[in-house]
């Protein structure tokens, strides 16, 4: 009964390749996020979708393109991978509404670009 799942968990690829990371949530949430965790363990927001519409697009290279086929899925496609893209990528979901907006995180995808 995983709430937020990501695939793959590990991804090792060479520079210049194109790869995708998939995220699915079964919580019925209407908002999903992609975060990049840097070497200092900080999470940095990349994208946010609400009901399949892009609402946050931080300063991220154009090589990164999110795709939300439905509100339960938010996939991250990366073109022309670079060494600096190596990181752990986390997907999260939340439900817009009153009060604190608790985010539920996936287990992360560790991307290594060689």
């Amino acid at each position, binding site marked *: 009964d995983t709430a937020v799942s990501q695939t793959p968990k590990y991804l090792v690829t060479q520079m210049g390749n194109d790869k995708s990371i998939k995220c699915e949530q079964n919580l019925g949430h209407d908002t999903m*996020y992609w*975060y990049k*965790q840097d070497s*200092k*363990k*900080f*999470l*940095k*927001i990349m994208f*946010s979708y*609400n009901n399949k519409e892009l*609402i*946050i697009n*931080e300063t991220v290279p154009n090589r990164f393109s999110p795709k939300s086929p439905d509100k339960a899925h938010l996939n991250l496609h990366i073109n022309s991978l670079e060494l600096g893209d190596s990181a752990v990528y*986390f997907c999260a979901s939340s439900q*817009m509404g009153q*009060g*604190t*907006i*608790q*985010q539920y*995180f996936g287990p992360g995808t560790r991307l290594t670009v060689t």
Partner: protein
Amino acid sequence: SQQGEEDPQALSIQEGENATMNCSYKTSINNLQWYRQNSGRGLVHLILIRSNEREKHSGRLRVTLDTSKKSSSLLITASRAADTASYFCATDGPDDKIIFGKGTRLHILP
């Protein structure tokens, strides 16, 4: 399950006053972080304190960590309207997993 538990769940104060939020956790940690989330936005990292540190400052933010009590506090001094947001603590432990608390909703009154 969430490890961090913020307290209080909601806090309303007058602009200019100081706001204090607390976070308690259950297991050993490497680091503890505080994040802010404005309505409808993603989490924004505020400050990280390592397990061997007791206090850290960043601008109007002051974070303390008491590993013996497994608790941390976030103090925002001279609050402003723009500080209205939800604040989350997050811990990462030996397994490198980051676990977020449920957050404190801070409302700054004009």
